[in-house]
Structures are given as C-alpha cells and as structure tokens.
C-alpha cells in the first residue's frame, strides 16, 4: 500500500511534474519571445525565407504581431502592427473563424525577376492547376471584417518601377454567404510620364464565394478604371469586370474592359488541368474616336476589330503558343491583316490586303501631295529557322496601286502601279531586303523594271545596296498628251559606312530618246568614289587630273519642261555640255568642272501668247568643295535673244566655312534694243552692273562695289554707284544691320511720262517729263535716309481722263526725302517693323505758268510687311484758287498737323482770303483720331471777319474714317452770323450753271400806270446740274442751334434757337424761334432729296412772325422814313422750292403769305411832301382858295390816316416776283382795296423793292365830303356808307416807301379841273404866296 502510495505519489509527482512541465512548456510557449523565436525558426525552415519580428503574440483569441519583416525570393513585407482576431471556440466546430484582420502600414516589395529563381533545395513546382486551386483551406472559414492598408512596390534591379496604395475593407465571408470587399487602388509607375494625374486608379468591389470544399468558388471584381495619359494618348474612363470561377473541369477566366463607347477589350479563357493547352480568345473593337485620342489623323481608319486566338501550354516552363491566329480588319474598309500559325510550327502566314494608300494623306499634307486611290496588298510566309533566322518569303507579290498623286505643285501624273516580291531576312547579325522583280507601270506605257538588294549589318551599322533599273518613261516627264520616248537605264553599287561615309563603287545613269540613239543624258562613275568626311574622301583620293564622275548632255529636248512650269510653254534643246567631277588638288574635296560649256539653243518661253524669251544661252559652271572652301562660279555666261537683247558676264561665290566668310562678285553687261513700251522713249540700252561683296571680319560683311549704269545712245539714263563700301553687320541676336560709310548715289536723266502709259488706268493719259533726279541713299544701323541733291520736277504735265483734260500745262517741283527706321528679329519667328517719314519740301505747283500752290509736307508712317499705316502728318500749303479755276478768286493757307493714329491731337487750320472783296474766313479744328472706332472727333470753330461784327460758329463733329461722313451730335454756337456775307462767299464757289430751258420774266402788273425808272429785272433763270447726291451727303446727325444773331441784310433775327437734323435723304430745321422786328419769329423747314425728280432737292417750310413792328421793317431799309404803315402785324408764310443746290433752293423759292394788322397808322404822302408848297397847303397857313383849303384838309387826313385793319396776301414765284392778290386797308373815313406786284430785284431788300399797286379808294364822312365836292366820288354810297372813287389810282415807289403821286394828281385835278396836276397846283400855290408876299411888301413901304 505504501509502495502503492509511493508509486502513486511518485506518479502524482511525475504527473504533477509532467503537468508542471506541460504547463511550464505551455507557459513558455505563451511567452511572446518564445513565440517570436519559434516563428522565426519556422519561417526560416523554408529555403530563402526569413522573418524578423519585434514581437509575435499568438493567443487563444488570435494573433498580435509588431515589427514584422518578412522576406522570400522576390518579395519582402514589413508591417507594424498586424492584428488577427479569431474565435477559438469555433474550431471545435471545425470552423476557422476570423473575426477581424487589421493590417496597417503593410509595405510589400515585389521583385518579379527573383520569382523565377527558385532557391536551392526548393521542391520542383508541380503542374499549374489553377488560381483558385491555390486557395484551398482545410477547414471551413469565415472572415467577418477586414481592414487592410498596404503599399506595394515593384522593383527592377535597385529601382522601384511601380508603387501602389491599396485599401481593402469589408467582410461577411462565410461558407454560406459571399464576402464583399471594397477596394481602392492607386498605382504609379516610373514608366508613366511624370505628373500628379498620371496614375492608375481603380475603385470597386470584390465578391468572393466559398465552395463546399472550403475553397474559393469564384472571385469577381467590378470597378472603374482610369488609366493615365501616355504621351498624347489619354484613354477615356473605363469599367473593369474580372471573373475567376470554378468549373467542373477547371477554371474559367473572363476579363471585360470597356472604354465607354469608344473601345472594348474582352478576354476569355478556360483552364482544364488535364489538358496541356489552354485556349485564349481576345477580342478588341475600336471606334474612330478611340484612335483619334492617339492621333487625330488616325480617325480616318474608321471602326476596326482585332481577334486573337491562341493555345498556350501553361504546364511548360516557357509557355509556347500554338494555332495562333490574329485577324485585324476594318469595319468600313477592306483592310485585312491576318497572321496565322499552324500547329506549333515556327512559321506563320502573314497576309495584308486592302490597306488604303489614302491613309497616308494626313501625313503627306505638309508636302502638298495627296494620294487619291490605291491599296497595298501582300502575302508572306514568315519562318523562324533553326539558326534563329527569321525570313519573310513572298507568297504573292506586294502590290501598291494605283498610286495617284495630286498636288498643286505638280502637273497631273498618271497612276502608277508598283509590284515587287520583297524578301526579308532578319538574323542576329543582319537585316536584308531584296527584290528581283520590281516593276512600276502606267497605263500609257511607262514601265521601269528593277532589281535591288539592301543588306544592313547590325553590329557595324554598315549598309550595302546594289541594283539596276531600266525602262521607258514616255509620259512621266513629258505628260500623257505629248509623250516623249525617254528610255532610262541605271545601275548602282553603294555602301553606307558606319562613320557616315558613302562609297560608290558603281553608278551609271543613261537617258536616250530611242534604243539605238546616242544618250542624251549620261552620268557615269569613272572610278570608286567615297563621300563623307574629309578623311573618308581622302582615303580613296585619286589624282586630281582623273575624272571621278562624268556628266554629259547632248541634244536633250526641253519641251517636256513645259509640263513642270504651269502657264509657260517652253521649247528648245540642251544642245551640248560636259562636266566632270574630280578630286580637288588639295585637301579632301571635289571640283565640278565644265569641260564643254553648257549650250542651250532655240530656247523659247511663251506665256499667255506672249513670248517671254527666245534665244540661246551658254554657261560654264564650276563648283568646288573642300574642307576649307566652297565655291560656285560661272566662268562665263551669255544669253542672246533673237530680238537682239544680250547679256553676258561672269559671277563667283566663295564660302570659307572655317571663317564663315564669303566673297562674291558679279560682272554683267547687257545690250537691250529696247525695254518693253520704251522703243520710242529710250531706244537701245546698255546696262552694266559690277558688284563685289565679301566678309570683312566675322559678323561684318561689306558691299565693296556696286555700280549700275544704264545708258542709251544719248548717254547715261540711270547710274547707281557706291561712293564707299556698304557694311552688313550681323548682331549676336542674329539681326543684320546695314550701314554705309558714304551714301549710295542714284542719278537719272529726264524721263518722258508717256513711258508710263502702259501702266496707267484705262482711259487715262499723262504727258510731261520727269526731270533729272539726283538722290543719295545713306544707311546707318537700322536707319536709312534718302536725300535729294536737286528737286524732283515734273514739267509740262498734262493729265486727261476719258478725253477730259483735268490737268494741263502743269509744273510740279519739290525736294523729296525719306527717313526710315527698320527693326527686325529673326527668332522665334522673323518679324520686321518699320517707321519713318516721307518729306516733300519747297514744293511748288504751277498751272499755266501761274503759281498755284506752295507746299511743305512730312508724312509719318509705320508698318510691317503686311500693313502700312499713316502715323503723323505735317502739311501746310498756300493755294491760289485762281490758278486752279480762272473764274474764281481767292487764296488759301492751310495746315494739318498731328497724329493720325490717335496718340496725339490732330490740328487743322485754314485761312481763306482775297475772294473778291469779301472778308477773310478762318477755320480751325482740333481733335483726335480714334483708331479703334475708326473716326476722328474735332472741335471746329469758324471765324468770318465780317464787319462791323465778326461772324462766328463753333461745333463738334466726328469724321468717320471709313464712311467719309462727318457726324455731329452737338450744339452749334454762334454770337453773330452774317448769312448774307456767308452766302456771298459761298456763291463765289458755286459750280457752273447750265442754261435753263425757259426764262421766267416778271409778271405783268395789274392796273399799272406808273412808269418806274428802269431797274435791274430778275435774272434769267439758269439751272445748275443735278448734284446726284444730297448737298449734305457727308453730314450726319443733329445740331442744337444756339445763335445770338442771324443777320440777313438788312434784316436780323435774334436769339435763334432750334434744331437741325441731317439724315441720309432729309435735312430738317425744326423748332426755330427768335425775335425779329420786335416780334416773335418761328418756323420750320425741311429739305428732301429725291434723285428721280427734275430737281433733286425739294424744300418746304413755314415761318411766322407775331406782332412785329412794321416801322422797323421800313426803317431797316430807309432809316430816315417813318414808314407808310405803322402797326404791329402778324405774318404767316409758307415757302416751297426745288433745286439742285442751296442757292437754287433759295433763288427758286416760291410761297404764299398773309399779313394782318390792326390799329395802325397809314401815311399816303406825296414824294414831295417835304416841299414848302406842300407844307403850306398842309398847314393851311395861307389864305388859299376854298378848293385848296379843302385839299389841305384832305392831305392831312391822308398823311396820318388811322387804320382799323390791314390785310395783305399774296404769293412769291420761283423767280422772286411777288404778286399781291389782295390789299385791303380799312380806316374810319377811307378804304383802300387793290392788287399789285413787287417784281424781283437782285440784291434789293423787300422794303426797297419796286411796288406796283393798283388801288380803289372808298371814302365817307369828311373825306367823303371833300372828295365828293371835288367830284372824285361816285354819287351813291354803298351799303356800308362808302362812296367809290370814280377812277382807280396806282401807288408806286418802293414797298417801304410807297409813292402816292398818282393819287395826288387826281386830287389836283379834282381841285383845279381836268387840267390840274399836283405840280400845277403847287406852282399855283407858290404864285399865290408870291403875290401875297409882294402885296404885303407894298403895304409895308412908307
């Protein structure tokens, strides 16, 4: 028992110890340090794997890890921390439940290159059984929640080529329900262009389904995808759909990538691990918009599709394709590309068909050449030989055609069809292309056959080509309409060396007209030739006396060149010429020497039926090239025209590359029988030109000599000569400036202006002589000055247009001058601007031997090659108007100064004087040009120095620079305006009138018995020609009138207000008001323009004067008169007129008027009312007879006759004659009724014009008694009590000073019987006075 107890105790001890050991062991295992150590050991047991960790704590509830640093071949991962929480109790139900995985700051670096390198000792990889197969688990598992943030980097060597940030969250993954995770991926790569937006972004969901065997049934990813721009290509936003799922036989893979509506990529594949091969099906469809993102020119390809099918052996270490077929085809074009691989052979059929050649057009646009049709097709068998040589052997010829080129620069070309069988061989060492059957043909017989071979050695970059061609080109050069049989043959053998040198071992070209004829063009290499660097050339240098290349021409017809010179018909022959290329005697260069001069015979050039050239030409060119000197020379050239013109000379140009220096010279002698249109003016001319230029130093070049002389039989016509060299300096900016030590002198002799006749407008003829000129052209850096040494003159100038002489016997003279500044820059684009002034000083214009104008002017300008703008002007002139038109007088001094672009003011001032005896007129305008509005605004003031008060006007106008109209919208201010004087001035500049079709005489005077003294009658009417436009045609707008006084001699209107509106065809004066003769003056006026009428201007207006004082009217004309009628009366008048000018409208105005007055005084006095006798009678101081006393009482009544009413109405005709249709004056004792006329008298105011008024007098009361006693009245009164005078009387005199003499004569007869006249009665009165005086004297004698 005891032993048992001992045994039990020992057993218990052992168990307890064991338990303690287990517990201790478990306790030890729970120690994180132990766990960390164990994890490291466990990981390190895998070949190539390692794990470093600060702490790993695995407990019943999960795992906590810190400072993890794990690495395996191709992958490293670091994280801090990782937390995995599991539910251990679920393990009892054979379920691994992960409640949450939290991973932050997980950094993973992948090095793909190291994946393939399996570490030593690693087990061999088994067959690939699928992606999902790798994700099998022993237990059913759940994942409730995931929160992972990781950064993944892909490394290549020591560099990270791609990085990505991935966040993954979600969960809910159980055996019974799919897990849904949201991902967000941002990836950047060094392969992408730099830029913040150039990253790949994808956002979406991942749905994972667990299958019954605890594996993954499917993984489906749906998300959006935004790919970065790559170069010019910016992909549209895309959607991504990936699916990996189990199938009964393996796995199925599907990818669908849609770029909106523009493109779609679909990949399908199924994996059956039991099959060696896995099929892939890839389809891509694209629309034009998708390709246009890459290059807009690709849109022309249209919609297209690509389909790739292939079988891949995924079980093989290096998956090899089998039965691969790629088809690319267009939806809208017949284009097809097919690559077909049969079985697993290393060969494939490549077929290309229907490729439109027009697809090349967008890339040819800059060349000006376009293809209008044609396709490309070919078929090859591509084979990869055992020696790794890839060959492409034609199965069918490569055809291109028809190739139809169109170009504005080229003549129409026949379509060309090209066929060849190019064989391509590509090996590690060489690339070679060869064809033995190249043909290019047209339907008109052009055919070139060729064979060629080109081999390029990759290692040495050496290329070698050989070949030959032969054929006939009857239409290519000469055109299909006039085929010229050119037979051509050529062969070559050339190599392009690594150092860029080209070696020609054989080169020959021959062109001939017929197979059995001698070559017309021959080019042949005489010995091997090397081109390139100096050393390369020198390496094959031969004796400089030996020919390298020989070029010869003999009897080459040139008519075919017409095809290449549109609009010009060329003919002739390149008769002979031979030149050779040789090595230069020194250095590694060449020289091209003409052994037999190039001669051209029978050359003609005709354009539009006009022969441009007809003759022969000979030239002897020489070109040389070496490392130290390039030169081109014409040792001699001569051009001889059949018309006799001949030019000959020599020229040279040398360029020294090392110094960047040139030297050039030209000597030219020409004999010209006559220039066009100059046979009769200049005759035969000799032209000599000598020019030399060279580089002085680096950037400085000089025109050492420039002498041009044109002479005719009489001597020099034009000479241009340098007095000292001209310098051209190239500035560091690339700008070239031009300067001269001394000026260039240009002299010409007198030139008849008839020489310019062919260039004048049709109908225009100019005669006269341009005098000799002598000008200096001086250049400073960026500045040029032209100065005269003598005035420029034009003598005996006469200009006629359509037979009408506009200028005759004129002489123009002035000193011309130009200051000009040029600025230009070369980069980034060439730009040139200039600024300057043109001067004409001491200008004089004589017409008919009389000085018409003196003038000085300077016109500033600026511009560029496209536009020239006037910038400023300083112009002043003195004009004698009589020299321009002998019917006129006057002198004008005018000036215009200022800025024409608006920067500074523009100022105009002019003075007109000596117009007959009229006062001077001054006009000034001050304003600015507004270039943007294309107008100029001016404040205008005018002063007309009338006496005793100066007339003035001020207003503002805008000049429309494009329309040429003056627009005003302002007030017209004036203190005083003498309209009469203004009209007199304006009339002096009236255009000539034309005879009227009829004359209008003054109307017959009704009842006129007077014989007024002959005075100037109205002038015969002469009509002016139609203006054809309103006389205000250049005016637009309105003026508010603010006029102090408007004087129209002898009348005046004060305080005139109103408005002038000027429209295109209507001028209106409205709201006119003022004061006139102490009355209120008002009115309105309109003038219409109608070109269809007999006259083109029509005037209509009305005027009113209220309560004006008639006495003032009379006293205005007769300051010492009281006036025949004194009252305040109203005047209403309408006026209408038609005419072709303002003056015609005024002169031809006709109208109606009506005057009405009340409560005034009429004075019917005798012209001799002031004589002593009349005064005696009036005064009654003498004891006359009863008749005379009665007469005295009557005269007193007439001398101051109160008026109840006065009414006058009438009309004015177009010639100014006034007809009084009614005259009625009512006074308490007398009534006057009559009719009459006021004939037109030029220059005479109305009050002073002749009056012819027939009156009937009615009387009553005292006047009636007196006249009745004188037996001058009818016996019986009328119903109104008035008795009519037995005979009418006529009142003459002037309107403002009527002459009632006939009435007084009648009264005299009434007083003295039928013998009496007013003169007799006055003499009788005088005698009576004398008698009484004598009687009184006798009484007074003692």
């Amino acid at each position, binding site marked *: 028992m005891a032993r048992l107890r001992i045994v039990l105790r020992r057993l218990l001890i052992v168990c307890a110890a064991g338990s303690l050991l287990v517990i201790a062991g478990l306790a030890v295992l729970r120690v994180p340090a132990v766990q960390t150590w164990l994890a490291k050991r466990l990981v390190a047991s895998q070949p190539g794997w390692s794990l470093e960790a600060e702490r790993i704590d695995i407990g019943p509830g999960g795992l906590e890890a810190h400072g993890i640093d794990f690495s395996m071949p191709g992958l490293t991962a670091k994280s801090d921390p990782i937390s995995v929480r599991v539910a251990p109790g679920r393990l009892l139900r054979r379920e691994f439940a992960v409640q949450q995985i939290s991973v932050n700051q997980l950094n993973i670096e992948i090095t793909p290159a190291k994946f393939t390198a399996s570490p030593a000792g690693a087990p061999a990889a088994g067959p690939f059984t699928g992606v999902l197969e790798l994700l099998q688990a022993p237990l059913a598992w759940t994942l409730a929640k995931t929160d992972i943030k990781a950064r993944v980097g892909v490394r290549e060597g020591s560099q990270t080529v791609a990085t990505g940030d991935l966040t993954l969250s979600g969960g809910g993954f159980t055996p019974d329900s799919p897990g849904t995770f949201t991902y967000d991926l941002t990836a950047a790569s060094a392969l992408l262009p730099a830029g913040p937006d150039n990253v790949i972004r994808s956002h979406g969901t991942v749905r994972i389904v667990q299958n019954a065997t605890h594996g993954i049934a499917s993984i489906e990813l749906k998300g959006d995808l935004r790919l970065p721009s790559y170069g010019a290509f910016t992909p549209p936003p895309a959607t991504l759909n990936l699916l990996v799922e189990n199938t009964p036989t393996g796995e199925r893979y599907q990818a669908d990538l849609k770029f909106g509506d523009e493109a779609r990529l679909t990949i399908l594949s199924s994996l059956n691990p039991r099959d060696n091969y896995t099929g892939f099906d890839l389809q891509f469809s694209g629309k034009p918009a998708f390709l246009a993102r890459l290059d807009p020119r690709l849109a022309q390809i249209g919609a297209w599709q690509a389909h790739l099918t292939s079988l891949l052996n995924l079980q093989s270490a290096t998956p090899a394709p089998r039965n691969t077929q790629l088809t690319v085809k267009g939806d809208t074009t017949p284009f097809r590309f097919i690559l077909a691989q049969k079985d697993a052979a290393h060969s494939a059929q490549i077929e290309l068909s229907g490729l439109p050649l027009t697809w090349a057009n967008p890339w040819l646009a800059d060349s000006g050449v376009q293809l209008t049709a044609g396709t490309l097709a070919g078929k090859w068998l591509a084979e990869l030989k055992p020696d790794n040589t890839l060959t492409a052997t034609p199965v069918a010829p490569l055809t291109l055609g028809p190739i139809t080129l169109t170009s504005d620069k080229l003549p129409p070309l026949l379509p060309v069809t090209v066929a060849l069988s190019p064989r391509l061989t590509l090996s590690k060492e060489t690339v070679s292309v060869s064809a033995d059957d190249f043909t290019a043909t047209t339907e008109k017989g052009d055919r070139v056959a060729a064979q060629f071979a080109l081999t390029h050695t990759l290692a040495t970059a050496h290329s070698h080509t050989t070949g030959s061609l032969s054929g006939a080109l009857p239409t290519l050069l000469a055109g299909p309409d006039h085929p010229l049989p050119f037979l051509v043959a050529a062969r070559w053998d050339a190599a392009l060396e690594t150092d860029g040198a080209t070696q020609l071992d054989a080169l020959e070209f021959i062109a001939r007209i017929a197979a059995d004829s001698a070559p017309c063009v021959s080019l042949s290499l005489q010995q091997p030739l090397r081109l390139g660097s100096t050393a390369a050339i020198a390496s094959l240098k031969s004796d400089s006396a030996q020919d390298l290349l020989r070029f010869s021409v003999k009897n080459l017809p040139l008519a075919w060149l017409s095809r290449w010179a549109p609009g010009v018909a060329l003919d002739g022959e390149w008769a002979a010429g031979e030149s050779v290329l040789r090595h230069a005697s020194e250095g590694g260069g060449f020289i091209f020497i003409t052994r037999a001069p190039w001669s051209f015979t029978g050359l003609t050039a005709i354009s539009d039926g006009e022969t441009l050239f007809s003759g022969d030409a000979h030239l002897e060119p020489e070109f040389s090239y070496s490392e130290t000197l390039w030169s081109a020379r014409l040792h001699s050239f001569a051009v001889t025209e059949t018309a006799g013109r001949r030019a000959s000379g020599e020229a040279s140009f040398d360029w020294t590359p090392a110094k960047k220096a040139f030297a050039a010279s030209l000597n030219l002698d020409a004999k010209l029988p006559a220039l066009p249109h100059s046979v009769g003016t200049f005759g035969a001319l000799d032209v000599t030109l000598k020019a030399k230029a060279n580089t002085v130093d680096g950037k400085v070049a000089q025109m050492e000599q420039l002498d041009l002389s044109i002479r005719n039989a009489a001597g020099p016509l034009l000479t241009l000569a340098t007095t000292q060299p001209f310098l051209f300096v190239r500035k560091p900016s690339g700008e070239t400036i031009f300067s001269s030590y001394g000026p260039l002198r240009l002299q010409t002799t007198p030139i008849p202006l008839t020489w310019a006749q062919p260039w004048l407008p049709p109908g225009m003829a100019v005669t006269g002589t341009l005098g000799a000129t002598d000008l200096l052209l001086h250049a400073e850096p960026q500045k040029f000055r032209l100065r005269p040494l003598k005035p420029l003159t034009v003598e005996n100038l006469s200009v006629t247009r359509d037979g009408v002489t506009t200028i005759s016997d004129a002489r123009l003279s002035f000193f011309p001058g130009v200051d000009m500044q040029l600025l230009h820059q070369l980069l980034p684009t060439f730009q040139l601007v200039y600024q300057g002034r043109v001067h004409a000083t*001491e200008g004089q214009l004589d017409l008919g031997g009389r000085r018409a104008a003196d003038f*000085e002017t*300077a016109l500033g300008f600026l511009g560029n090659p496209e536009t020239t703008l006037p910038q400023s002007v300083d112009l002043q002139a003195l004009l004698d108007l009589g020299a321009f038109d002998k019917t006129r007088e006057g*002198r004008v*001094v005018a*000036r215009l*100064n200022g800025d024409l672009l608006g920067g500074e003011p523009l100022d105009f001032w002019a*003075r007109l004087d*000596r117009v007959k005896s009229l006062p001077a007129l001054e006009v000034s305008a001050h304003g600015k040009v507004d270039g943007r509005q294309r107008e100029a605004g001016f404040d205008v003031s005018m002063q007309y120095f009338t006496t005793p008060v100066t007339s003035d006007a001020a207003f503002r106008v805008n000049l429309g620079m494009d329309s040429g109209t003056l627009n005003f919208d302002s007030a017209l201010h004036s203190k005083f305006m003498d309209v009469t004087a203004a009209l007199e001035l304006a009339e002096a500049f009236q255009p000539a009138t034309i005879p009227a079709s009829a004359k209008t005489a003054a109307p017959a005077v009704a009842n006129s018995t007077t014989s007024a003294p002959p005075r100037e009658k109205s002038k015969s009417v002469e009509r002016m020609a139609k203006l054809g436009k309103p006389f205000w045609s250049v005016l637009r707008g309105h003026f508010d009138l603010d006029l102090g006084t408007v004087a129209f001699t002898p009348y005046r209107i004060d305080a005139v207000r109103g408005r002038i509106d000027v429209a295109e065809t209507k001028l209106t004066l409205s709201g006119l008001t003022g004061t006139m003769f102490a009355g209120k003056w008002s009115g309105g006026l309109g003038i219409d323009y109608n070109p269809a009428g007999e006259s083109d201007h029509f005037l209509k207006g009305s005027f009113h004067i209220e309560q004006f004082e008639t006495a003032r009217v009379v006293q205005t004309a007769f300051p010492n008169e009281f006036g025949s009628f004194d009252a305040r009366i109203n005047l209403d008048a309408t006026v209408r007129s038609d005419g072709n000018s303002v003056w015609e409208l005024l002169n031809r105005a006709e109208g109606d008027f009506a005057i009405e007055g009340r409560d005034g005084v009429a004075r019917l006095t005798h012209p001799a009312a002031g004589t002593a006798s009349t005064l005696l009678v009036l005064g009654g101081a003498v004891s006359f007879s009863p008749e005379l006393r009665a007469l005295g009482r009557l005269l007193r009544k007439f001398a101051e006759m109160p008026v109840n009413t006065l009414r006058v109405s009438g009309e004015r005709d177009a010639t100014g004659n006034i007809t009084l249709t009614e005259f009625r004056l009512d006074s308490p004792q007398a009534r006057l009724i009559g009719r009459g006329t006021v004939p037109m008298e030029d220059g005479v105011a109305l009050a002073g014009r002749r009056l012819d008024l027939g009156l009937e007098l009615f009387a009553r009361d005292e006047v009636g008694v007196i006249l009745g006693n004188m037996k001058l009245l009818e016996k019986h009164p009328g119903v109104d009590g008035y008795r009519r005078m037995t005979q009418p009387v006529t009142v003459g005199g002037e309107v403002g000073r009527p002459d009632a003499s006939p009435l007084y004569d009648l009264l005299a007869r009434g007083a003295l019987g039928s013998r009496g006249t007013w003169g007799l009665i006055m003499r009788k009165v005088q005698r009576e006075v004398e008698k009484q005086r004598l009687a009184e004297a006798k009484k007074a004698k003692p």
Partner: protein
Amino acid sequence: MNLRFLFTFILAVAASAGFAAETRTLAGTVTNTTHEATAPVTLELTLGDDGQITGWITIEKPLTPGRWPVTGTRKSAWCEITYQPTPETEVTFRGALSATEFRGTYVFGGKGELVQYGRFQAKLAGSPSGK
C-alpha cells in the same frame, strides 16, 4: 533847299508810318525729326506790311542752343523765315502763321551734310496753350 529837305523828311515819315510793323513773340517747341530731339524755341517776329519779316529766333538745348537773327517773307498766312546757325548752314521754317500761332516744318542743311528735317509749333504768349 531846307524846305526841300523838310518836305522829303515829312514824306519819309509819312511813308514809314504807312508801313506800320507788328511784332509778335511766339514760344513753343521745335523738333528735329531726323534725330528725334525736341527743344524749346522762341520767335520774335516783326511783320511788316510789305510782307517782309525780321526778328530773332532763340533755341535751347538739347538742340544746338543759340539766338540768331531771322529774315523772311509772308503771303497772307503763309510764312517762311530763314536763319543761319553757322555761316555754312541754313535753317528754313515754312508754315502757317495765324493771329496766335506759327506752325509748320523746317529743313536744316548745308556744310555738305545730309539734310535734316523737323517741325515746329509756337504760340503767342498768353494765347491758349501758348508757351
């Protein structure tokens, strides 16, 4: 004899009184447009009724400063005056002379040099914008 002298003297005085002269002083600027330089100018012009002009011109820097006598002629408002800065050179002003302003262009030449061009503008002292 004395009477004859007196008569002649009276005639001369009367004649000179008949050709009354007017003197104007104008100030402004003169610009050499060939070399783009502007300087103040003062013109003191005596305008005779016979159309002759005499006077002085004063030009300041930056043009060659100095004061020189001028002579010239006038036809209506057309006016031309000349002065010689040096014995070899001559400057001629031509322009329009109004009651308040003389404005126009000028030419400088002589001494075998290229002609230089310019413009001028001078106003009566006290007139609007006059200097």
